């Protein structure tokens, strides 16, 4: 079983880095604990080639900053959906990537999205204090989620 943790966002735009930071935290933890079968990737934004990237995994967890009205973070299931299209779009949503994966490769991984609440989006690499707290909570949640997913195969 292969699990992909995929964070995205612009690390130069303050809390928009939350998805990337989460991926970095998990990458560090995976390396430190020598946890097998977990891959980590990140990018500024999702795009059509990510459909090929996720087609090689069994489980994918995307992580992104959220401006929506949530408390600290929310973990949701992603289902294929192409309705989030934008007219001059240079980026796509996790649901769109999943839908494209299904149509091109005839399969798609079980996919989830970790929304982490952000607050400020200025030109700086420093997360806001509240976003840092949310990141810490989300990171611990993600570690437990990965353990849970791997538990029936590996002893961590």
């Amino acid at each position, binding site marked *: 079983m292969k699990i992909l943790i995929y964070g995205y*966002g612009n690390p130069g735009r303050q809390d928009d880095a939350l998805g990337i930071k989460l991926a970095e935290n998990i990458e560090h933890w995976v390396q430190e604990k020598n946890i097998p079968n977990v891959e980590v990737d990140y990018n*500024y934004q999702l795009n059509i080639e990510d459909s090929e990237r996720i087609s090689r995994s069994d489980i994918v967890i995307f992580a992104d900053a959220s*401006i929506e009205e949530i408390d600290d973070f929310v973990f949701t299931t992603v289902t294929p959906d*192409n309705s989030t*299209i934008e*007219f*001059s779009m*240079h*980026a796509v949503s996790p649901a769109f990537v999943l839908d494209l994966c299904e149509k091109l490769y005839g399969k798609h991984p079980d996919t989830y999205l970790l929304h982490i609440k*952000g607050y400020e989006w200025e030109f700086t690499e420093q997360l806001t204090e509240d976003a840092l707290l949310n990141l810490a909570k989300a990171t611990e949640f993600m570690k437990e989620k990965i353990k849970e997913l791997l538990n029936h195969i590996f002893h961590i």
Partner: protein
Amino acid sequence: MNKITIEPVTRIEGHGKVTIHMDDKLNVAQTRLHVVEFRGFERFVQGRPYWEAPVLVQRLCGICPVSHHLAAAKALDVIVGAGTGEGLTPVGEKMRRLMHYGQMFQSHALHFFHLASPDLLLGYDSDPALRNVIGIALKHPDLAVQGVMMRKYGQEIIAATAGKKIHGTGAIPGGINKNLTIEERDGFLKGADPMNIDKMIEWSLAALELFKGYHKQNKDFVDNFAVFPSNHLSLVRKDGALDLYHGVLRAVDKDGKKILNDVDYQDYYKYINEEVKSWSYMKFPFLTSIGKKDGWYTVGPLARLNTCDFIPTPLAQKAFEEYKAYTKGKPNHMSLHMHWARLIETIHAAEMIKQLLNDKDLQSTNLVTKGKKQYEGVGLIEAPRGTLFHHYKINKDDQITMANLIVSTTNNNEPMNRAVNDVAIKMMTGKKEITEGMKNAVEVAIRAYDPCLSCATHSLGKMPLEISLYDSADNMIDQYRS
């Protein structure tokens, strides 16, 4: 006056909208495309050490960070005394070119397969939810896979040359910080099907044939959609060849006469000025010698093939000759021919990548050049969407004191307004409500320029397309929201 508004609303910025003003007789009186471009970035870099700029500027945009990275590095080459373009070591210049052509290849592929080909293959009036690569995947799955893998190939070229996917560090003032390993080179040259350069060239040629086939069947539409005379501006190589990385600045008028004759872009401010208009945050650049009214110009693929004399790679040159013959050698002013030009550039980018990969200079270890320090530098590059200007001044403490950026979408401000106005007149005259045809036509017109309306920040949320219709008393009488 009736007013129609088409408004893609972003969560943070990159806010753009179209307003179409109707008179009492339902004639289109005026059309304006408003794009909010964030200018705060230029102030943000002030005070920062100059060598940080090539990494910092990638924060501007998650769509073409490589273009900003390289334009800034080129400006700083001047500041560290490495000169412009030719001053770098062979590996320094060629690694940057490889990075740039990788960027051009993946960006043009994305535009064609994700934004343009759905319009062509599925129809401009087809379901918007499927008028994208998903629709292509359903009806033409092989083509969709090509688009995905061409993007992936270009992205991997960028990662190999810039060092990493995000905030690449490959280009530094005076050169680069890594060369290309033999393993990396062989992977790009001879990778398992389809991830090798010969397949990329083959698919690029096939994409061009696809466009040409559509054009043959739909000449009237393609040749008459958003057509208006324009000046055109781009870099060209000193001998007049298409060069997307470096050269001199050339502009031609609507008839092809040179109106900016291969000047050194270090002096761009002597030739180009920017007008501020009260109704838009985005400036309107123009050629100073011609003036505000008639000095505006187009940049991007259409402009580049109008300014250059030839393309220095054989397959693209052959395609260029056919393209130029269509307008009898005169400048091409047909907005939808932007797709044709973009695909010729895609072939050129793939050919350049192959040429560079076969160049042994890429394995050299002489990465950086330095010379006598300067306190001002300008870097220009032909980004996928057009000419990108970066201009910096520094002080004796190596801090940036001034930054001026003119991005491609800003350069295309007036042409995009003209294109939208052209389609509005054709689609909206006599109409009292927003029609599907008008919405589609406005989108198609803007999309031909591949503008970067939504930059940088993209946290979860939606960017709907909003269309509002106002009567002559400014009351909203109709609204569409995607």
